[in-house]
């Protein structure tokens, strides 16, 4: 399996503030990829640049053999690179069913709409019960489920999840972790930002530690690593 996504020398930021300083990651070769590191050091910015929400200042992003640097978010979704942003509030006044049919807006996702809908319903039975309910009335965990469901409706070849379990109660968090594992088992490669190291290790053994807008350490599959090593990276020795 070749790399699905290669980011090289990416520099990006907001206005005059540069957040990413020539960052590079590879994804898709060894299955899932995990990103971790302290808050405010560029994880979310990296993902926003990859999905086209933020125009990079320099560097290149290649997805599925095509250079997508600077492409619009719309055409990147159409290529099958789908991003679930952090704390996605989605469309508060729309129903879950409406959100799902928006998820299948891209022409490439239309033919798979019915199948994907069944897949989402099987993955999140909780949502299937309240298809006609408005998003604003859902709990944080349920909204996260809808977010992931909408992303699946876009028929992803590679799925980016930015902190899918942020701020959730333990019970609903377990449910989400299980769903994310199921998606991965079904053959969709993932890029996951996550603070829960145990969940991250369960999901993948290819990790990037991102600090100061750069990759400080890459942990490749086969590298020996322990929970305590990661904790040491987080908090320093």
């Amino acid at each position: 399996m070749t790399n699905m996504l290669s980011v090289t020398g990416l520099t990006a930021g907001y206005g005059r503030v540069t957040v990413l300083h020539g960052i590079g990651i590879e994804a898709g070769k060894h299955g899932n990829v995990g990103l971790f590191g302290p808050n405010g050091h560029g994880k979310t910015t990296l993902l926003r640049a990859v999905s086209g929400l933020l125009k990079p200042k320099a560097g290149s992003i290649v997805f599925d053999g095509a250079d997508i640097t600077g492409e619009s978010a719309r055409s990147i979704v159409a290529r099958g690179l789908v991003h679930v942003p952090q704390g996605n509030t989605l469309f508060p006044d729309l129903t879950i069913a409406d959100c799902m049919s928006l998820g299948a807006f891209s022409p490439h996702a239309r033919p798979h709409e019915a199948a994907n809908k069944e897949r989402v319903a099987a993955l999140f039975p909780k949502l299937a019960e309240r298809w006609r309910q408005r998003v604003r009335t859902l709990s944080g965990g349920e909204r996260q489920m809808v977010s992931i469901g909408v992303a699946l409706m876009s028929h992803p070849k590679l799925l980016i999840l930015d902190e899918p379990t942020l701020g959730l109660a333990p019970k609903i968090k377990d449910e989400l972790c299980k769903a994310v594992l199921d998606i991965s088992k079904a053959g969709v490669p993932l890029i996951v930002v996550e603070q829960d190291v145990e969940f991250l290790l369960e999901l993948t053994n290819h990790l990037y530690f991102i600090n100061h807008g750069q990759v400080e350490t890459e942990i490749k599959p086969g590298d020996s690593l322990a929970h305590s090593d990661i904790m040491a990276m987080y908090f320093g020795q």
Partner: protein
Amino acid sequence: MNALADILFGGLFQGSLYAMMAVGLALVWTTIGVFNFSHGVLMMLGAYFAWQLVDWGLAPALAFPIAVLLMAGVGWLLQATVVRPLIGRANLVLVVVITTLAAGSLIENGVLELWGPRSKQIPPLVAGNAMLGGVGVSLHQIAIIVVTPIILLALWLFLNRTRLGLALRAVAQNEDAACLVGLNVTMLYGLAFAIAASLAALAGIFLGGYRFMTPVMGADPLLKALIVVVFGGISSISGPIFAAYLIGFFEAICSYYFGLYWTPALLFAALILTLMIKPEGIFASRSRGLA
């Protein structure tokens, strides 16, 4: 019998005109989250386009649709020049009030320069008069009463039953999320303005068919449309439509029993009272909470 027919007819007619005006304003508000203060001027411009085309010898049946289409283009252009570049700024709502007022003033004076201050009239949708329940009415007014609900229903079906309509309703709620599911945000904003301007043009053609047109003819309808939209609740399309007919009937009843001079004052009194009791508008709760 005569009073009832008078009120019923007057209410339906005024309600139709108000609904036609207000729905475009509400559409722009619900999709983009701004108030378009040039909406009245767009209505006027639509009427003048129709007049010009008819004056050039085009049949009204051809001239009216062309004027409406031209106004869709004007709406798109207006959005691209004075609204779209400002999206994402702080105080967007206030800034757009100023830019659309400015654009409106520019268009208004342009029309005055180009077509002059002399009043004009465009041919009615349907010529002739009829007696209805003892009241003499023009067929033009009947046509407006019949055509308006059809157009509003078509708009409602478009917004609620098609995927493009769904995208239009979604785009302003979360621009990032809209991009991430592959919506073309720029196109959708343009579309909202284009539809709103077309509806305004249609209202202008309705109005220009039974009243004299002047370059300032849009001012009063804009004010009425604002009242309707605020009264009905600004979070949906159906709220303002119901409110338009409600206000139409309210005015018809008031002007029958208290006279035309008292009607605006009574309307504003009712509006203030309503907003004190239900600040979000009378129909607003329909679109909130559980579906």
